[in-house]
């Protein structure tokens, strides 16, 4: 009996201690998980070093830092988000509450104007949109499932990406129209080919950011791509891709999002490029390192989690996911993009007056630089560069004090800091100046500048820009004759001396001849002055083929004061 008594007294003391300690439980993960059972796996929302079924756990702290924002009860109320994807299971138990059936969705199986109250998955593999939507707006504190970043925002869907839909130009342009506040595009083209900018699409986006939300502009968030390594063009070998090779990613009206994993470093697949704006969690593949927990098409006969999967959670053998309504293996910049979309929804609730330019400013200004290391990066596939030439640079700090990295953009999104700045701007408005575009006014045509073969000096050409703007984005176009443009690197240096590498040498454009007016974008010069001499340098990074720079033009977007 004494032993029993001792045991009971010990147990009592333990429970008291546990009760007290729960009040101090680190970051309330326990209570959050009672409110939404799968919250504990959402390292992107609260990274406490959980492993989420992977071999290696997350590294605590690398999340989107939204604690204070939720404490302030900012949940994305009143913000309407279009998920432009392959369809959405609007009846999902954790999404339905945030799907208001407004007859503003787009079903491209219908005839023009395609309007519908919803667009559910049509093809058997239309699983993507439901997972994307959950990262944005899975309902919160309903004691089921997961939670979105903006758990009280509202969803609509455009099913442009469905396997049953032909991707015509009209549908492509149409999915970028509508009365939403934010559109999330977790998709893109393969980054081993290149094309000129689609002018109609460019015009449509410009129209949306200048007219929607009563002139404050709709916000377009786009996945940067998963082609860090991609099949070389016309080959069965792998090369290094570039987010800028997708011609939709070099339009400054979109926000291109790269992915980090649960260790806080660039995800293995995440495309790189000077066109990136910011980084958000996208995870890895869930086996070596955590992927992302989100909603999945219900039932174990479809979706990412299904009876054919091998792990208990994914095949419905776990009581936490007995109906296969959630997945823990979603990843990609497809996942990073909706995480950022959710953050922007929170921003628009905190300050509904924010313009699309102010949103971009806030994100850039408040992004976290986790590992500020300068210097160079050698070719990831060990390919040689000309003597003395660096394939890529690490973090740079531009003349306006913004840090930038072609792998992270301005850094990892920091929700609480962004919300704080958004609230501040509500009181003390930000003056970004009148939005101005120089419209390719400066062009050096009829050039005949030989590009020396395999030398680090390359060939340079300069353009003097007379217009005084505060830079928000810079585009360049080049025409170059060369038998294999994958060998060419392009660098742009601003009047302030900031260098941005727009194209890395020895890339995935293998065997493609000539640049014929394709556009490249750099965000690295953000907030620098535009006026002065801009210098393009073209470097041929591989011996054997030489070429000629025949024209160079520049287009600067920025604020005029």
């Amino acid at each position, binding site marked *: 009996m004494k032993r029993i008594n001792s045991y009971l007294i010990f147990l009592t003391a333990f429970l008291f201690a546990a009760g007290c300690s729960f009040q101090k439980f680190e*970051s309330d993960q326990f209570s959050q998980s009672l409110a939404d059972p799968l919250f504990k796996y959402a390292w992107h929302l609260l990274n406490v070093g959980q492993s989420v079924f992977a071999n290696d756990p997350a590294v605590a702290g690398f999340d989107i830092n939204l604690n204070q924002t939720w404490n302030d009860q900012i949940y994305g109320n009143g913000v309407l988000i279009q998920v432009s994807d392959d369809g959405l299971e609007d009846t999902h138990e954790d999404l339905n509450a945030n799907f208001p059936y407004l007859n503003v969705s787009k079903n491209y199986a219908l005839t023009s104007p395609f309007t519908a109250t919803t667009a559910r998955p049509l093809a058997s593999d239309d699983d993507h949109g439901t997972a994307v939507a959950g990262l944005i707006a899975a309902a919160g504190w309903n004691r089921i499932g997961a939670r979105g970043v903006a758990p009280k925002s509202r969803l609509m869907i455009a099913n442009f990406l469905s396997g049953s839909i032909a*991707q015509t130009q009209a549908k492509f342009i149409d999915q970028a129209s509508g009365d939403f506040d934010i559109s999330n595009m977790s998709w893109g083209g393969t980054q081993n080919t290149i094309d000129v900018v689609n002018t109609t699409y460019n015009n449509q986006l410009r129209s949306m950011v200048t007219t929607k939300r009563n002139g404050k502009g709709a916000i377009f968030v786009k996945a940067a791509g998963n082609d860090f390594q991609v099949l070389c063009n016309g080959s069965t070998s792998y090369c290094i891709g570039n987010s800028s090779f997708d011609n939709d990613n070099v339009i400054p009206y979109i926000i291109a999002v790269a992915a980090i994993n649960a*260790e*806080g470093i660039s995800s293995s697949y995440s495309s790189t490029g000077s066109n990136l704006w910011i980084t958000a969690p996208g995870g890895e593949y869930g086996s070596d390192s955590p992927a992302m927990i989100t909603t999945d098409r219900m039932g174990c006969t479809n979706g990412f989690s299904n009876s054919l999967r091998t792990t208990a959670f994914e095949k419905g053998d776990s009581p936490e996911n007995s109906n296969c309504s959630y997945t823990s293996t979603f990843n990609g910049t497809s996942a990073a993009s909706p995480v950022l979309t959710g953050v922007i929804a929170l921003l628009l609730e905190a300050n509904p007056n924010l313009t699309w330019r102010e949103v971009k400013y806030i994100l850039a200004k408040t992004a976290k630089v986790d590992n500020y290391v300068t210097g160079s990066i050698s070719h990831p596939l060990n390919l040689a560069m000309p003597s003395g030439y660096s394939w890529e640079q690490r973090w740079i700090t531009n003349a306006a004090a913004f840090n930038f990295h072609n792998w992270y953009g301005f850094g990892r999104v920091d929700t609480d800091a962004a919300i704080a700045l958004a609230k501040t*701007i509500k009181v003390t408005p930000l003056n970004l100046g009148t939005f101005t575009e120089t419209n390719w006014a400066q062009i050096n045509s009829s050039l005949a500048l030989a590009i020396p073969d395999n030398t680090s000096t390359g060939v340079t050409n300069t353009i003097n820009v007379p217009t005084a703007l505060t830079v928000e984005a810079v585009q360049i176009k080049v025409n170059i004759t060369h038998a294999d443009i994958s060998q060419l690197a392009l660098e742009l240096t601003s009047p302030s001396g900031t260098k941005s590498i727009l194209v890395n040498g020895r890339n995935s454009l293998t065997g493609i001849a*000539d640049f014929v007016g394709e556009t490249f974008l750099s965000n690295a010069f953000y907030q620098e002055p535009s006026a002065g001499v801009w210098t393009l340098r073209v470097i041929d990074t591989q011996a054997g083929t030489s070429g000629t720079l025949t024209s160079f033009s520049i287009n600067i977007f920025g604020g005029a004061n």
Partner: protein
Amino acid sequence: MHKKNLFISFFLLSAAAILLSSILFLKIKKTPEIKKSSSRNILPDAKTANLSSLVEAENMKPDLNLKNIAETHEAKDKATRALQNIKSRGRLPSQTLTKPSVLQAHSILTGTRWKIWPNANVVAKLSSDAPVARVSHIDIAEGEPSQSTIVNFDNTNQIVLYNERLQKPGILTGLIIVETVDLPALRRDLSSVNAEIVNSFDQINTYFVTGLAQSFNLELLFTQIKKWPHVRNAELEILSKNYEKN
């Protein structure tokens, strides 16, 4: 004595259980509160020079509280991991498209790198023939010549193209993308050439147009449209991009 001890223990145990339950209940009910991470300094830029004291935000400083990852994010590590993941996911290289043996230039495609691939057809998705390529979710098969020609374009038989520079196929859909400064004039002129608008984007003055009849002369229609004074720009719709989930 033993009974008394037992009673006290049960009493304390019950009290502890009630306390614990209450705490858990309150945790569920109340708005979640999460500890805020440590604040940092700001380096103001020109826009926020007057706001810096109000904002705990920055783009400047690394968070030194987090694990230093300088040695682990080398390019090669990322490349190695990427390739491992590609292989483990079964994303192995697919067969690349060999250059078509016969290609035909056409004046309507002047100024582009596209040529007609005469021995290729757009096929239904569920065709038993294995497609040689897929463009914009539309399958292309090689074999029979297309029933369509540029001057006798059949809307049900789109023309397959090939871009030698980019080494990829495209589909000439028979639609013309027209940007106009005068919509009524466009409607009037289209009517006069037996063509119509099939998709409208008024906000950017852009319209997708095609012949009214199932078969029409695409070259003639395109040439006419480009000459109309109210047309700012006209181009043929060529599908060549595959939009993929990321």
